[in-house]
Each structure stands twice: as C-alpha cells, then as structure tokens.
C-alpha cells in the first residue's frame, strides 16, 4: 500500500508542473503589459519597474518560469491590487467558505443519491425507479445557477412566512455573530504558526466553528443559510451518484453469489447491504471523485447566486475587475486542490480493491 501511495505521489509531480506551466503561460498571454495587467491600469512607471525586476520579467522566459515556481513553492501568489493584500491572505479567508459549501453539497448528494440509487436498483422498474431516473436525468441537465435562483425564489419569496422559509443569500442573519472556537476555549495560539493558521481556517467555517464552540443559535442560523446553496450545488452530483449507484447495484445484484446468498436463506437486507452494496462501492467512489471537479467549478456559480464570499465569488469579482493576479493564483490553488483530491480518490480505490494496488 505504501509503495502504491508513493508511486501515485510521484506520478502527480509532472501534472503539478504542467498545471504551473499552463497557468504561467496563461499569465504571459494576457494582452498588453503584464505589469499593468497584474497591478491595474493605474500603476506608475516606478512601481512597474520594481515589479518587473522583482518577478524577473526582463529575463529569459525559462528563468521567469523558475521565478514563478519558486514564488509559488514559498506560498507567495503575489498581491491583489484591488484588495491591496497578499493573495495568500485572501485565499485563507475565502477558501474555508468554499470548502464548507462543497462538503455540505457533497454530503447531501451522497446521503440522498446513494440510497435513491440503491432503492431504484432493488426495486428495478418500479415507480420509485422510474421517478428516480427521471429526476436524475433532469438533475444532470439543470444549470446550477438557474436551480439556485429558482430555489431562492421558492424558499425566500413564495414560501415567505411559512416554516419552510429559508434565507436566499449570505452566511448568517444580521445580528448573529460568531466567535472563533479557540477564543471560546480560551486558547491563545499566537500567529503565523501552522496550528494557528489551521485553527483560523477552521474557525471560518461557520457550521464547524459553532459546533466546536457549542453555539447552537449560530449553528441553526448557519445551517439555514447553507441549505439552499448546498442543495443547488449538490443536485448534479446527486443525480450522477444516484445513476451510478443504480447501475452498479443492478450489475452486482445479477451475480451468482447474490443468488447463493439468498438461496442459503440470508435476510434480504443483509444480502443488499453486505453482499451487494460493498461490491458496488468502487464505481461509486469513481463517480464521487469525478464530480468533485464539477463541484469546485459549480461553486463559482453557486457563490455568485447566493452572495457567499468564498473563492468562487472572489474569482467572479476578479474576472469582472480584470484582477488577473487573483484569477491566476486561484486557478493554480484550485487545480492543486483538485489533484490532491484525485490522489485521495485513487488511494481509496486501492484501499477498497486490492487488485489495483497489486497491479
């Protein structure tokens, strides 16, 4: 297993270099002067000259690439001219919000999609099956931004003053405050260290933070704000997962060992959960892994629709303001994040299916 993980890690190095090269190439293809593209039209000549010499823009292209890789390896993604702070700081502020949204969406899609798919397979051709497949087909065809807007309309306006009313934007209602859990616990972490950065990162995820600090009012409010965006973002993966769960289960349920298990008198539920479902897991992990990329892309749209100040939202703002520094940095970070996720998915295959790691 360790050799497998090591081999996979080594294999992802060229891909990482490719990602860096692609984003580097994109940043050099921006029409016009790279300095003013990165720092804004109002940058003065003095500032630009300093920028050019600092990033080696007057040197050969390979040296420039070297400088770029070196900067990123040191966690330096440059500065955003609009926020006038390092892009790394912005990332640490915004990434937790996106991660929280993506995790919530993924949880919803797995918790609803898997049981739906399994039930459709077990009750093949029943009305549950037909409805689920119809829903799955519609689900993968919906634009996530449209679904988000429609959900906002239905739950914030049409169902106003009913118990089902849900807020259409933002992360918390006005007046609801969060205190970082480490303050509630009375910890002093200092600043700059790994643990303090991690604690700050976690404290920015409202739901997790309010659980850790036992603040139930904030927790309720944060969950209420999370439902609509998470459902909007989770619908496409939910549909994909339901379809895959169904076809994987159908395939497994037709195997001889399932018939044997039933013939020897095992309870139906035991056969379905222990014999069939476990063997249908591998294709499910594949489709969950594949939908992670869509989730990250969809987060841009979902955050725009629901006014969540996550990575996606800032990316959208950066695009409209032509803040290339942010676009470039966030693309790199999300791509690296995505490579890491794929790595985890691959490793979990190897864990689930010994044939893969021995091959």
């Amino acid at each position, binding site marked *: 297993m360790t050799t497998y993980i090591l081999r996979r890690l080594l294999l992802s190095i*060229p*891909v990482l270099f*490719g*990602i860096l*090269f*692609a*984003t580097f190439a*994109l*940043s050099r*293809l*921006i*029409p016009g002067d790279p300095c003013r593209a990165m720092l804004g039209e109002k940058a003065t000549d003095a500032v630009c000259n300093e920028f050019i010499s600092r990033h080696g823009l007057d040197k050969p292209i390979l040296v420039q690439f070297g400088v770029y890789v070196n900067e990123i390896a040191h966690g330096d993604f440059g500065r955003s001219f609009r926020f006038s702070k390092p892009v790394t700081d912005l990332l640490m502020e915004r990434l937790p919000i996106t991660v929280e949204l993506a995790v919530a969406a993924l949880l919803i899609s797995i918790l609803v999609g898997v049981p739906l798919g399994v039930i459709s397979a077990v009750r093949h051709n029943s009305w549950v099956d037909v409805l689920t497949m119809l829903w799955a*087909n*519609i689900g*993968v*065809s*919906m*634009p*996530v*931004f*449209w*679904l988000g*807007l*429609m959900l*906002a*309309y239905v739950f*914030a*306006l049409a169902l106003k003053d009913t118990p089902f009313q849900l807020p259409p934007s933002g992360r918390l209602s006005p007046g609801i405050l969060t205190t970082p859990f480490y303050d509630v616990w009375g910890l002093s972490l200092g600043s700059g260290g790994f643990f303090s950065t991690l604690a700050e990162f976690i404290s920015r995820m409202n739901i997790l933070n309010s659980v850790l600090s036992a603040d139930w009012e904030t927790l309720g409010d944060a969950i209420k704000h999370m439902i609509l965006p998470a459902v909007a973002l989770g619908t496409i993966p939910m549909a994909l997962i339901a379809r895959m769960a169904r076809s994987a289960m159908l395939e497994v349920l037709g195997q001889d060992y399932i018939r044997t298990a039933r013939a020897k008198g095992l309870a139906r539920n035991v056969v379905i959960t222990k014999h069939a479902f476990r063997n249908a897991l591998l294709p499910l992990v594949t489709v969950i892994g594949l939908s992670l*990329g*869509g989730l*990250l*892309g*969809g987060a*841009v*749209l979902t955050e*725009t*629709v629901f006014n969540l100040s996550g990575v996606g939202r800032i*990316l*959208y703002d950066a*695009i*409209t303001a*032509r803040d*290339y520094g942010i*676009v*470039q940095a966030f*693309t790199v970070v*999300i*791509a690296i994040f*995505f*490579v890491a996720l*794929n790595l985890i998915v691959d490793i979990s295959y190897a864990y689930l299916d010994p044939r893969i790691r021995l091959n």
Partner: protein
Amino acid sequence: MTAETPKIAKLDAEGLSLKSVSLWQITWRRLFKRKSAILGMVILGILVFVALTAQWLAPYPPTLSMLDANPPQNLDKRSAPCIHLFGCPADQPQHILGTDGNIRDEFSRLLYGSRLSLMVGLATVSFAIAIGTVLGALSGYFGGWVDNIIMRVMDVLLAFPSLLLAIAIVTVLGPGLINALLAIGIVSIPSYARVVRASVLSVREMDYVSATRALGGNTNQILFRRILPNALTPLIVQGTLGIATAILDAAALSFLGLGAQPPTPEWGSMLGAERNQVFTAPHLVFYPGLAIMLTVLSFNLLGDGLRDALDPRLAHVS
C-alpha cells in the same frame, strides 16, 4: 418441404438471412425502442425546428426595444407576461413571456436563443472532436514518446475543473462568444483524445490492420480507413453527451458575463442579466433556464439512448 420452412424463418429471426442489416439500421431500431431516447429526439426536433424558423415564429426581432416597435408600445421594463387568451386586456400588446429589462419581447429572444445554443454545442464539440481525434490517433498509433507527451498534456488539461479552466482561458482571451467557444472546446479535447486513443490501441494489432500493411497500405490509409472508423461509435456517444456539457458550460460562462455579450439573445446571458430581478420578475429567469435545461436534457437522453443502442454487448435486446 413443410419441415424446412420453420428453419428458414428461424434463421431470418437471428439476422442470418441474406438481406444485410447495417449497424446504423440496428441502432436506429434500438433507439426507437427506448422511450427516453424518443423523448430526447422529440425535444431536439422541436428545438431544431424553432431554430430554423425563429424569424417567422418570433413576433418581434430579438433586439428590438418595444419603444421602437411599430407602433411604439409604452410598456414598463420587465412587464409581466400578457396573453390575450388568458384574460389579458385586449388593448394591451401581447407578450407571451413578458418583456425584459430593455423592454424587448422575451419570447422572441428565447426563440432566437435556440440557434445560439445549438450552434454553441455543435461548434465546440466538432472543434474538440477534430483536434481530439488527431491527437488521440497519433498517440495511440505511434505510441512511445509521442503518446507520452500528448497524454501528459491531456492529463494537465484534465487536472483543472473544466469550467474553471474555461474561465481562466476566457479571462486571458477576453470575454466574447467566440472566445468562450474556443475555451470550452479546448477544455473538452482530452475526453475525445482518450476515447480515440483507446480505440486505436484496441485495433492497432488486429490482423486486418497487419494485412493492409502487408498489402502496402500507407500510414494514412491504415489510420483513416482501417483504424479510425472503429472509434466512430464511442465518439458519437461521447460527442452527443459532450454537446450537453458544452451547452451548460457556455451558458455558465455567459451567465458570468464571459460569453455572449448583450444584446445577443443567448439564454445564459439573458438569465445573467436579470438574475437580480428574480424576486420581482421571476419569468425572466425561469424561462431561459428552462430552455437551457430542456436542450441539455434532450442531448443527454439521446446520448444515453445511443450508448445503449450502439453497445454490442446488448445485441440480444434488439
């Protein structure tokens, strides 16, 4: 004599008669046995019809403000749908889906939007298939370092979430429909390259390819006449499903303001322009989104149907 008749009939039923049935005829027949595929084809048929006849079906030109109509109509911005049949006063001009933020007829814009949507899907996928096929064929046929370089580049492209890479590309190229199409096309190349490479690898060592080589066939002949036709069926399936994704991504880019620019009647940008009005004029958000969904749904249903119909493992079904 009478004993032989049923035997011949049986042979017929197994498709062993002299009358040959082509793969496409079988596929077509199987496709028509699937309700979902029929539904997909019906929606797609309606869409193509609307796209072809938009200039006659639409009551107004798509970019005409009602203030400049003949006679001018003094309507409010984003007026609600008005259908005479459903009790809208006859002295008010009829706008089936209301008017948008620039007092243009939403229904006409929606009809014209079908042209762009289909064009976007076909153009990006043709572009991606053309380049993906060449890359995949080279990769699979020559192997070695050619294969390595091409497939590693494809790996890098796949390492980005597709919408995000498209956003990054359009940010650099500048917003606009053509650039958005180019970006989505580039992003979808790897999946076609992989499909073609896999097919090429699977038939490269077949006897009939060796036979062509022995008969003196050149690389072109072997690749384009003998090998690539085998990649056609998976490409058709992948392409049909790819059109659905391309339309969704293009709509998303336009929604973000990176694709089609106003006043182009593109569904994504129509929706994006009115998204802040979702609480006051929901019809301006609902209908363009519904149109996108139906278009994407039709290609998805058709693609799924084609995949099942072209799958030789399901041969006994027909």
